[in-house]
């Protein structure tokens, strides 16, 4: 038993050749967010607060696909969504279709705490944001030059792009252009076994206006109960049909699998290249499986284990990251 925290910045076809200038800021952000989360847990903040503050930080970072730095719809706009869940009460909140709210995850939390509903979207969610007085910015605030470029490439390739770290070459023979990076998330447990999960995203590059992914759907991209807390990332459509986040918890609850077993099983059943997740259990265990090339991730436990990584850790336990 003890606290534990895990966070991610998206799973996908992250190339091993990712240049240093694109990799360093992402790693630095993961490190910074991990430190923030750990400090909060050590200060006995409730996990619900911890996951919210970590995801806010990830949203504010322009190098991840949430908040500022969100990928663009086919219309060149930003539509953000997020979800938060409290494992103790199963209370949850979700938002979709936000274009001016600086921290979608905080609005999701307000839906949970200040309305009789769970999920608000589009104009209704934006109106609620104004009622609540949360921080809003002009939609242009969220748009970065990199994402304008990604959208252009995706349109040229005429494809909905899920991996946005690499520009798509129009004549690319790699049909696996459907690689997945798309979300940020955080899960945490304190040393009393209280669990919480939060996920936030801009969605898919070149997505149809109005497209909702797995992130705000309880049981798909986000879930927490008394067994575990899960935040998933990858191809939303695959995560939804596999009810990924709920299934990890269901396997623990109904089949008695351990956290690692349950998470590995769920990830394995989703077609390769489509999913990654972070999860913690009431006992303070942590797992971060993925079936993509890589997943930006970080975790720490009270026992002293900590990891920040992008690609798989090899069989010697040495992160391939450190071999580069």
């Amino acid at each position, binding site marked *: 038993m003890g606290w534990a925290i895990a966070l991610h910045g998206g799973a996908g076809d992250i190339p091993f050749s990712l240049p240093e200038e694109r990799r360093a800021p992402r790693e630095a952000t993961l490190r910074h967010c991990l430190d923030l989360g750990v400090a909060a847990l050590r200060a006995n903040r409730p996990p619900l607060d911890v996951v919210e503050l970590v995801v806010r930080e990830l949203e504010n970072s322009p190098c991840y696909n949430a908040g500022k730095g969100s990928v663009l719809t086919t219309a060149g706009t930003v539509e953000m969504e997020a979800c938060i869940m409290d494992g103790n009460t199963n*209370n949850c909140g*979700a938002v979709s279709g936000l274009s001016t709210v600086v921290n979608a995850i905080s609005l999701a939390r307000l839906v949970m705490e200040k309305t009789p509903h769970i999920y608000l979207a589009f104009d209704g969610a934006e109106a609620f944001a104004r009622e609540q007085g949360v921080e809003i910015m002009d939609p242009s605030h969220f748009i970065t030059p990199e994402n304008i470029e990604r959208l252009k490439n995706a349109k040229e390739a005429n494809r909905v792009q899920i991996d946005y770290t690499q520009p798509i070459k129009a004549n690319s023979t790699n049909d696996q252009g459907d690689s997945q990076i798309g979300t940020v998330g955080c899960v945490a447990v304190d040393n009393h076994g209280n669990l919480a999960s939060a996920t936030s995203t801009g969605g898919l590059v070149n997505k149809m206006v109005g497209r909702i992914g797995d992130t705000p759907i309880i049981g798909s991209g986000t879930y927490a109960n008394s067994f575990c807390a899960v935040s998933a990332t990858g191809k939303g459509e695959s995560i939804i049909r596999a*009810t990924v986040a709920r299934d990890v918890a269901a396997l623990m609850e109904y089949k008695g699998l351990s956290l690692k077993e349950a998470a590995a099983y769920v990830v394995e059943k989703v077609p390769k290249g489509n999913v990654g997740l972070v999860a913690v259990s009431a006992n303070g265990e942590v797992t971060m499986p993925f079936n993509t090339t890589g997943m930006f991730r970080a975790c720490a436990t009270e026992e002293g284990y900590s990891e920040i990584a992008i690609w798989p850790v090899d069989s010697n336990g040495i992160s391939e990251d450190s071999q580069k």
Partner: protein
Amino acid sequence: MVGWAIAVHGGAGVDPSLPAERQEAARRVLSRCLALGASALRAGRAAVDVVEMVVRDLETDPVFNSGRGSALTRDGTVEMEASIMDGRGRRCGAVSGLTTVKNPVSLARLVMDRSPHSYLAFDGAEEFARQQGVEVVDNSYFVTDENVSMLKLAKEANSILYDYRVPIPETCSAGAGAMQMNGLPISIYAPETVGCAVVDANGHCASATSTGGLMNKMCGRIGDSPLIGAGTYACGACAVSCTGEGEAIIRSTLARDVAAVMEYKGMRLQEAVDWAIKERLDEGKAGLIAVSGDGEVAFGFNTVGMFRGCATEQGLMEVAIW
């Protein structure tokens, strides 16, 4: 092969003092839908086609609250949502925030079949509807006088209640169960959802759910009906459609959990349904219909009544409210 089976519902949570002619009207619509579905199944139609066809019929009829006859938002408008899932491959499609689309379930199907996505909402969904050429009408088409009156009553009730868990005096004396759902007295609360679950002659399951949502809801509020795993779910083992307090159904991932206990605990269909209703809802009020790949049908609800019906290849045909 054990044969096809079909279940339909028109919402959980029924006013015990619902006038006889309303009960009759509901029974007639349910019977008609069952006959429609059974006939299609006899003709060998696939489960996913049958659920769409039946839910279209329920949406078109104003008796239940989906499509025409939908519950109203706090602004007096209609925002509809729906989802459909084909157990064969677990393909799915969902829509929310529709204001002009005559048959939301059919748009959900098109999202599944003709878009690269699983879920479209609000302006984007309306735009997709126009691209697909589905039938659209003015929002006023969906608004009935009855629901305009209901909305007024709901606003009055909500203005007294801040915390919807505080019980308000019962308006009728028929005892059993809570007389309140979603913060409204049962006489005002309108069952909000329709759904259908089918297993076809080949043992494939599918389900679909459609609704106008919660009376007096905030604009932009999304309930359980379009959420895969909450209001709708289908896989190889079964297909489920839920109705009732949307928030309770979402947090309990009710539809997925029926299938999960079958898959992970080896329960049969009725046992799984009973278990989910009893163990997963806490204080929430809801109901569901389900079919299994083995040709079974099951209902479960912890509300006072659920409009429902079922039919099987073996000749069972049943419509019930209580």
